[in-house]
């Protein structure tokens, strides 16, 4: 205590010679270590240890009953030769492309609309509502709305003179349908993220452009898009990473079917672990997922140059 007071008075009186003062400041190391102890336990036990263990398990064969057996790269060799794995990669990429493509366009439009029309908290709350319910709820509601026989969605298709579609039961439609359910749940959230980025663009730029007689579309191209790029980059990285890990929506609707149409990587991992009890192979698949996510993040970061800003 006394030390602190001393420091205060000294700092007030004499402009400090920086290093000596710092040395006399109370050292909080003990308290600090005590305070971060619980968080460190969590970090090591549930983040770093599973990371290492997951990588180790991918080199073993293990059904939970007997002891894990080291098998070298067998799981990876099997993976490369496994058509279902490649199919899962394809299905995942297809899902991500549809999901992120549509979601980003709709969210960007929604954010610009909000910026132009209203920043009302009511509108912002309404568009966020789907994000509040779980993926499971979102999936089940659309499972019903798009039901082949009774769903209002198919009813509407009939009203406008189209044929009914087996959204969740046709191999062609299953992935786009699940992707659209995800778009529904996340578009408002994504729009709010982009909206926050839009708010950071100085209003004076638009005013200047308007004085110069620029059209809305021209302003969007010349001001909004370039200045939004860093934020858009980060939003893309976050949503792409989330999208790759899709599981809930598929698990409660198609369960991976029809045939293997929606057996995305995450569903395939779950099947291997909890239906086949093949934890070694499931872990190898997880490592593949980890590698894909890292590559995707890196590439996206480079492409969108998300770390830099053009605002200066």
């Amino acid at each position, binding site marked *: 205590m006394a030390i602190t007071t001393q420091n205060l008075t000294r700092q007030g009186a004499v402009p400090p010679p920086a290093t000596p003062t710092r040395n006399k400041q109370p050292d909080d190391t003990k308290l600090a270590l005590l305070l971060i102890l619980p968080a460190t336990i969590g970090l090591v036990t549930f983040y770093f240890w599973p990371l290492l263990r997951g990588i180790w398990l991918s080199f073993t064969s293990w059904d939970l009953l007997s002891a894990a057996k080291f098998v070298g790269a067998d799981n990876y060799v099997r993976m490369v030769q496994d058509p279902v794995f490649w199919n899962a990669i394809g299905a995942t990429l297809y899902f991500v492309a549809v999901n992120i493509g549509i979601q980003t366009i709709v969210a960007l439009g929604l954010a610009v609309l909000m910026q132009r029309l209203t920043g009302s908290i009511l509108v912002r709350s309404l568009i966020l509502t789907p994000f509040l319910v779980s993926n499971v709820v979102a999936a089940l509601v659309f499972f019903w709305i798009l039901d082949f*026989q009774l769903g209002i969605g198919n009813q509407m298709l009939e009203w406008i003179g189209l044929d009914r579609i087996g959204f969740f039961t046709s191999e062609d439609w299953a992935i786009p349908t699940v992707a659209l359910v995800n778009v529904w749940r996340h578009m408002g959230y994504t729009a709010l*993220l982009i909206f926050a980025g839009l708010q950071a663009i100085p209003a004076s730029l638009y005013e200047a452009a308007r004085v110069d007689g620029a059209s809305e579309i021209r302003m969007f191209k010349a001001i909004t898009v370039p200045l939004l790029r860093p934020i858009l980059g980060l939003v893309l990285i976050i949503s792409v990473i989330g999208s790759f890990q899709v599981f809930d929506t598929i698990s409660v609707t198609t369960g991976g079917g029809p045939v293997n149409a929606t057996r995305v990587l995450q569903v395939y991992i779950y099947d291997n672990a909890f239906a086949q009890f093949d934890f070694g192979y499931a872990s190898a698949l997880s490592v593949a*997922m980890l590698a894909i996510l890292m590559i995707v993040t890196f590439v996206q970061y480079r492409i969108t140059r998300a770390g830099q800003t053009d605002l200066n």
Partner: protein
Amino acid sequence: MTQLTNAPSTTAATQPGDLAVPAARNEPSVRRRKTIHPGRIVAWIVMIILLVITIFPFYWMLRTALSSNGALSANAASLLPVDFSWGGFQRVFGLQSIDDAIADGGSGAQLDFWRYLLNSVIVATGITVCQVFFSALAAYAFSRLKWRFRNIAFGVFLMSLMVPVIFTLLPNFLLIKQLGLIDTMLGIMLPSLFMAPFAIFFLRQFFLNVPLEVEEAALVDGASKIRVFFSVIVPMSAAPIATISILTYMTAWNDYFWPLMVSYTDESRVMTVALGAFSAQSPQGGPDWAGLMAATLVAATPMIILFVCFAKRIVNSIGFSGIK
């Protein structure tokens, strides 16, 4: 100044250089009508369509939940509840006799949603309280205490943001199994109890903003550092702590994959997993849609209530939480 900053958003679609517009906003119809641009009307229409797409599924849940299954198939297109009935909700809460339930298109299997609701509340509350508390302690050490390895340690914590949660699930499941915590609520909660990298990061950001003078004043008064945390930092950061608590609660409530791995019986089954199980039991003649929609509504309602109470806080936190 306020008018100036408002101008771009309210008059965006008007004529270029129309400087009279900010004033016109306060004038009644005649002047105002001039400023309405066809593009603006189209924009509003698009906006309203998007809002309808957003909200309609919620209405449809309610409409279906209040209908009876028999009538649903005959009147698939009716926009109002058909053959109004509380049956769906009664089946969800086990208030219907099994015979009645089967007659109404239910599966007859008893799912005890009160139990699942309670489990969800326990799990989400436990995770929120512990995770926010421990994260706040760490955030305090990373923001207000001076110690040697502070920046290195914080960097290590930040690295965990890059570990995809999904990758840790399988090994964590094995750990929970070895600890004998499979099918317990503690097992569901444990990996999230100690911290979340994002919560630490988020809270640290706000703790850094508490003015140094306030903290020093308390120290001069003889308070210990830990006292300062509880009596200065926490009260002064009540708003961000509330925000991160709400976000954590929502995440915990909505989680599906992890509880699905860990829970097998009613002992630990939470709402999301119960919903999946409910939809999987297809009685003869198609799923119990009324019951299923009633169940999804029951699962969604606590989140919607939370949102109605804290909408502004949650909406305003989005800008921060996403951009990290």
